[in-house]
């Protein structure tokens, strides 16, 4: 059986989704037997896009013309294009102040120094067709391995729908929002992380983006009852997903 050829690239991001793959230390030798890492600048030279890839896994949001060009090139060369992680899927932290003109943000950091133009950071789907999404900041290792397993079998990953609260119930965690009065975003955030943060007593910060099955109206009511106004909650939710709104999703 020929090994699937993968391209793995990063745009505007921290490389954490790609590093999560390299953090599968125990599984890497097996992955190498099954998969060809053809284009992977973070870990392999030379950096050259050629031939066809079975899938391109792309981390990060898109904020320059150069990145958009690379993204389109990867799309052209790949059968499937997967948005890897929250920045690629939703925009992520780079989009925190997308409501402020880019020029103003640049001025705050670089003064009036001339710099090449850049765009407002956007998720990959704003530029190219995205075939599947794996969220998380960073995504969980088991999700990356499941993605690679799916690709090996010629499938696309099944996307979760339930919020982090479901994971918390499964682990019989104390509810940080109702029992501790903490601003936990679990009710509205996509689960699948085994409620990693609430399980250690740390409220969910919403790093996996919106959960399709969340009951938004009910959750907002719950936040109000616990002393958090809608603006505070929305502000936190937009840390990872600038487009977050109060629409019912499912």
């Amino acid at each position, binding site marked *: 059986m020929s090994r699937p050829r993968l391209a793995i690239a*990063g*745009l*505007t*991001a*921290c*490389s*954490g*989704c790609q*590093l*999560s793959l*390299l*953090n599968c*230390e*125990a599984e*890497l*030798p097996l992955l*190498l037997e099954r998969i*060809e*890492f053809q284009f*992977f*600048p*973070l*870990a*392999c*030279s*030379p*950096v*050259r896009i050629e031939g066809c890839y079975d899938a391109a896994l792309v981390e990060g949001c898109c*904020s*320059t013309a*150069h*990145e958009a060009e690379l993204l389109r090139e990867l799309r052209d060369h790949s059968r499937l294009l997967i948005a890897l992680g929250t920045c690629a899927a939703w925009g*992520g*932290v*780079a989009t*925190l*102040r997308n409501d*402020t003109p880019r020029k103003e*943000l*640049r001025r*705050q*950091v*670089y*003064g009036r*120094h*001339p*710099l090449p133009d*850049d765009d407002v950071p956007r998720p990959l789907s704003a530029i190219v067709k995205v075939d599947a999404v794996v969220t998380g*900041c*960073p995504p969980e290792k088991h999700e990356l391995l499941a993605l690679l397993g799916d690709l090996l079998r010629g499938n696309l990953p099944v996307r979760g729908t339930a919020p982090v609260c479901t994971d918390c119930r499964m682990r019989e965690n104390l509810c940080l929002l109702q029992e501790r009065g903490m601003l936990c975003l679990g009710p509205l955030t996509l689960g699948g992380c085994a409620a*990693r*943060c609430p399980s*250690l*007593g*740390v409220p969910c*910060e919403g*790093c996996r983006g919106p959960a399709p099955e969340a009951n938004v109206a009910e959750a907002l009511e719950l936040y109000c009852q616990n002393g958090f106004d809608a603006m505070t909650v929305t502000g936190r939710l937009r*840390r990872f997903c600038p487009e977050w709104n109060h629409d019912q999703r499912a």
Partner: protein
Amino acid sequence: MTSVREINQLARVEGHGRVQLMQQDGRVVGARLELYESLRLFEALVVGRRFDELPEIVCRICSICSTVHKVAALQAVETGLGIVASPQTVLLRQLAVQGGQIESHALHLYCLALPDYLGCGGFPGLARLVPTELHQGLSIKALGNRIQELVGGRAIHPFNLLLGGLGTVPTAEQLAQLADELLAIQGAALATVELVAGLQESLPLLPALPGCAVTGGPSLFGDRLTTTDGQQVAAAGAHTWLDEQLTSYSHAKLSNFGGKGPYLAGPLARLNLAIPCEPAAQAALHRFNTRIINGTLSASHLARAIELVQAIERSGRLIDELLQNGIRPEQPVIPEQFAGSATALIEAPRGLLLHQYTFDGDGRCTGAQVVTPTAINQAAMAASLTSLVDRLAGNSVSEVKVQAERLVRCFDPCISCAVH
């Protein structure tokens, strides 16, 4: 006639950069490193955010260095708002930072640098050529991640490290098990030193550079910047001393050191500052003293390997201390004032890291400054590339390209950090 040839995106480094080679009559006459990573603007993104959100946001500057960014931010915010973390929290943070050091150094040595010496493109080649060594490296790397996971809750973006404390304190049993694993991996770390010391170096000898690092605290921690040529700068004055400038070719600000640089940050600089090491690391350092002290850049990998031994020993020592003191569940300390400003210095795997924040009376951030080791190292990288081009005068352009890329990797650059 002068023409320019660029090395396409640098491979096996974190982030996006390239080297441009200036040519005249078919010979390379100059080289320039360009960090063209897209503008991240973190220093603007955090403005207006509440103090407790800052560490959670800025750790996203970089994944490889996320623990050390988080701890730097926590320290700066805490100092600014007058929060004093418990001794247990302080030790656990030190442990998490050492875990990050282990993961980063193992990743760089085995996955990013070693292929240069074995004539392959990356870890897939290593798996074919030297599977035992790759396995050894990945085992060390995995342990670094387990430390970060146990203390920080996650290897990347460690959410369990909070302002004033931890979400959940690891148990004595978990820490004791980690101590056993650290003891068991020490042999692999020492073998790494041997492996790296035995690599055939093809880079020409380049002039040694003075170094700068954080001192005045336990390993990788401190309150001042010290240089190998005898300068000392308190944390509050470090940003001014580093003197960041803007360039036309890099999106990362360049430290200009008031025109007195360049200074090197990172493993080689730290070992040259004679910061005390644990016994096995000290012995390794003593053995390779002549290569490390005033060593040239190609000794960076060896310095990194010695630091791997140091970080593993130091982690074990920290766990011993924690267990001796007795592990207690603690609640995070909450601030009583919301206005303030402070600067924190810390050593990231690649060198000195600075975080500086100011908060208004509501605890909202009004200003942020981050200086990262790769931004500091830009001047040293530029000077070294110039020396390299001089030394390789007469060589083919393709040969200079290969060596320039290897030289840049000696710095283990982290470009997402540099263009934060």
